[in-house]
């Protein structure tokens, strides 16, 4: 068993964990980030992509709203390349209580969320597909945020500050000795090799899985995993984040992000955070709710559905209330104070919008445990890729491509990924998984859902990485199975038509079922 030594071991490669790794590395701690799968493979990569203005929580949860708008404004400064400034609008539809509009306005004003009531006519001109029966409309600074770009930018920055990263490594156990967590035993899930890590402090940023990690140190952390289903539609049916102006509920947000728009979401308590099942009932419900915001929603082409699991934290130890942080939006647990277990901090709950602040309080707790004072600078220092300070513009890929229209092959026509993009991503990721490449480049995420690019990507992976046939074939077949999970719940209309073409390509033309394994 090999061994590693670090000041801070961060468990979980989602937005929180990558934020903690960056913050800790920037404060001069040697840092190791460990993730059981790929970065942003958990909840972070499975949400709708909304950068909250706080409007959604302005009435129901004012502290969360205050935190959201504060972080929204910070992320616009430090991570603009990850953000498309779509703006957001809250609309009172015929199904909503018109009186809620006044409560919403008051809530936004009390929490500092910039809000303006705008005329119905102007709103319909801005969003012509919006339900013409809306009664009131309010603009807020909602935006779209690309979770993969965000996590990768944080990790790149962390690495620039000396942090190390181990993806596809799961935590087998935590080493606890004399009331202190001393480190962890990890296992490389691909090779089976084990690694022992000795750490001064372990930060549990495993999100919905934080309860499982905490129990390895004998600490009880109750996470109530809340499953949410989302559907990406093939078009930007709307260009602004649309919210129903009511208390937060299911299927009441549509977020335009990249070339799609995403409707979300549901909230079903599940026992296992690895649950990803999507029921027909959930899909039907979302489509019906979509109709209320955008009439004809059911006739639009659905691309893909997925489920993410929220880490809803429930404190089981009422007397330890002081260990909870300032708002209900996230939970910082210093296990030394809470459970008498030193060297161990859990940061969970929260949302991607507030990931930076969660990382800040977690690393503050690390400093406290280590008895040092080192200030946080993540609210000021821009993430790699965001140096220019400009937000992401839809059409940026096309813009980059246009001056050189026929200079090289386009591997993924849907997302305009060129061969040199793909070659560079393969080299950078050092991965044999097309799904890992997808999270980096969005290949296979467009209308054809990989029908055309996956063969090309597999063959280039085979050539670039000198893969043996079995590894390459496994990667292709694995991608097809993964893709299907998000396709079969929404197969109707043009997406069924597309899928039938893809079935013929893979099974009829190529006959991948009979590939040598």
């Amino acid at each position: 068993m090999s061994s590693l030594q670090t000041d801070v071991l961060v468990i979980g490669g989602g937005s929180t964990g990558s934020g903690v790794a960056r913050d800790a590395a920037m404060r001069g701690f040697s840092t190791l980030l460990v993730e059981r799968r790929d970065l942003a493979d958990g909840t972070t990569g499975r949400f709708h992509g909304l950068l909250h203005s706080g409007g959604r929580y302005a009435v129901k949860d004012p502290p969360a709203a205050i935190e959201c708008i504060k972080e929204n404004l910070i992320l616009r400064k430090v991570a603009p390349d990850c953000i498309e400034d779509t703006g957001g609008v809250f609309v009172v539809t015929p199904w909503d209580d018109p009186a809620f509009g006044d409560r919403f306005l008051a809530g936004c004003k009390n929490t500092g969320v910039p809000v303006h009531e705008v005329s119905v006519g102007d709103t319909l001109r801005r969003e012509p597909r919006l339900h013409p029966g809306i009664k009131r409309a309010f603009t807020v600074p909602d935006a779209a945020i690309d979770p993969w770009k965000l996590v990768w930018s944080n990790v790149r920055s962390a690495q620039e500050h000396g942090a190390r990263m181990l993806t596809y490594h799961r935590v087998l156990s935590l080493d606890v000795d004399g009331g202190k967590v001393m480190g962890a035993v990890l296992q490389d899930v691909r090779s089976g090799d084990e690694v022992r890590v000795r750490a001064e402090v372990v930060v549990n940023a495993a999100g919905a899985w934080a309860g499982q990690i905490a129990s390895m140190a004998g600490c009880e952390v109750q996470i109530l995993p809340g499953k949410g289903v989302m559907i990406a539609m093939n078009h930007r049916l709307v260009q602004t984040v649309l919210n129903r102006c009511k208390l937060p509920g299911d299927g009441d947000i549509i977020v335009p992000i990249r070339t799609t728009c995403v409707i979300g979401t549901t909230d079903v308590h599940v026992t296992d955070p690895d649950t990803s099942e999507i029921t027909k009932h959930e899909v039907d419900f979302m489509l019906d709710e979509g109709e209320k915001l955008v009439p004809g929603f059911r006739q639009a082409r659905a691309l893909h559905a997925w489920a993410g699991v929220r880490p809803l934290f429930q404190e089981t130890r009422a007397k330890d209330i002081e260990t909870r942080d300032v708002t209900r939006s996230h939970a910082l647990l210093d296990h030394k104070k809470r459970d008498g277990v030193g060297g161990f901090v859990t940061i969970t709950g929260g949302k991607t919008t507030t990931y930076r602040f969660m990382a800040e309080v977690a690393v503050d707790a690390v400093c406290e445990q280590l008895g040092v004072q080192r200030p946080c600078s993540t609210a000021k220092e821009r993430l790699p890729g965001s140096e220019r300070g400009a937000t992401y513009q839809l059409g940026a890929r096309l813009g980059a491509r246009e001056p050189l229209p026929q200079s090289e092959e386009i591997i993924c026509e849907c997302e305009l990924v060129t061969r040199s993009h793909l070659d560079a991503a393969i080299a950078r990721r050092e991965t044999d998984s097309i799904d890992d490449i997808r999270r980096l480049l969005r290949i296979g995420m467009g209308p054809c859902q990989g029908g055309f690019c996956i063969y090309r990507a597999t063959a280039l992976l085979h050539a670039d990485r000198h893969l043996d046939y079995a590894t390459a074939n496994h990667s292709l077949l694995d991608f097809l199975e993964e893709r299907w999970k998000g396709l079969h719940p929404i197969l109707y209309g043009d997406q069924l038509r597309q899928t039938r073409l893809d079935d013929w390509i893979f099974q009829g033309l190529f006959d991948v079922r009979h590939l040598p394994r």
Partner: protein
Amino acid sequence: MTYDVIVVGAGLAGLTAALRLSEQDRRVLVIAKGNGATHLAPPVIDVLGYAGDKRIESPQKALSGFVVSHPGHPYANVSADVIAESLDWLSRRVPELGYQGRLDENWLLPTAVGVPKPSALVPESMVAGDLRRGGRFVFIGLRGLKDFHASYLADNLARAQLPARVSTRFIELEPPHDRNADPGSVGFARRFDEPRFRDWIVQALAGQLEPNEKVGFPAVLGIEKAGEVWRDLERRLEHPAFEVPLLPPSAPGIRLYDALARALRQAGARILIGDRVAAGGSEGGRVAEINALTAARPVAYRANSFVLATGGFASGGLELDSRGSVRETVFGLPVAGMPDAGEPMFSPRYFDTHAVSRAGVAVDARLRPVDEKGKVVFENLHAAGAILSGAVPWREHSGNGISLATGYAVAAAILEHAAPRIRVDARD
């Protein structure tokens, strides 16, 4: 304007039915929203490649057992003799493609990922790829052609389950390109039409081929001058050469369409591509007319008989809406093979057979659509090709076989039973 027969759909099934009928002097109109699967798929005729997980060596031998175990299958309505006849007919009718093969044995050709795939009838430009007797194969990659990767193909094919030993290798060429570095397979096919480009290929391969090697090219060996291109390369390389089918669009598939369309026009048929078709009036249990939904206004076309060859879900012949309700898109015919209401349409595992896979139009022995009770819907409406229920063509490797055989059979059914042909003097 009145026709003897109107064929809706311009894929292999529709074109076959139309050409057979035109050959018998019937006045035929082919009308379609767009080009069919001919432009997407290679022109190999797979009659039956797999029954379950068993690879079929002779469709002729396997068919009788297959239709017994698959009673609703389109092949249950066409005899093996008719299927065999249809293969011979196509070979004769489009000599440009130089088809070779018979119903009693399957060729085994490599796919672009290096899996041996059974086909009954193949164009001459693919024959040398037959893997059944083993041998030495070299595959030629062309830098810039993103849809063909010779090393991946060669690596897989070397591990394939085959009756005889096969050795594989690959050569990557970097052809010169001007302006467009991403011309796609059709662009490459046009370049192969040019003698200068073939000169370059031949020179680049000079001294690189080993004795007895068969040379596999991506299926881009010409569009306009396809036969000439392939023969020229074989002659000058002094090695057998063959094409490996690629992702859509399919250059050899377009060659088949062009050959069939040429034959159809010569036989006096009319082809209209570009308008969606909707049902028109019916009289006394017979379809009287269909409407072409042109940009300006619907235009009615009348005929004595109609052939529906619009394809399945992939081609737009069938549609499923978000509430799980299925529709045949031209006549609103009953759709068979759908799961019961409330039952899942798809399995959560990709490679399972899904409940909607066999959905389509059920027909009687004369290939006329029937309702749930087996009653013929319209006396003079027939169906052929991928719209027929009961098959999983991409699994059985039966797609073009079903289209050809049922297109061929539907013409026979019409010739046998329909009213005598309309006599016309002038043709447009």
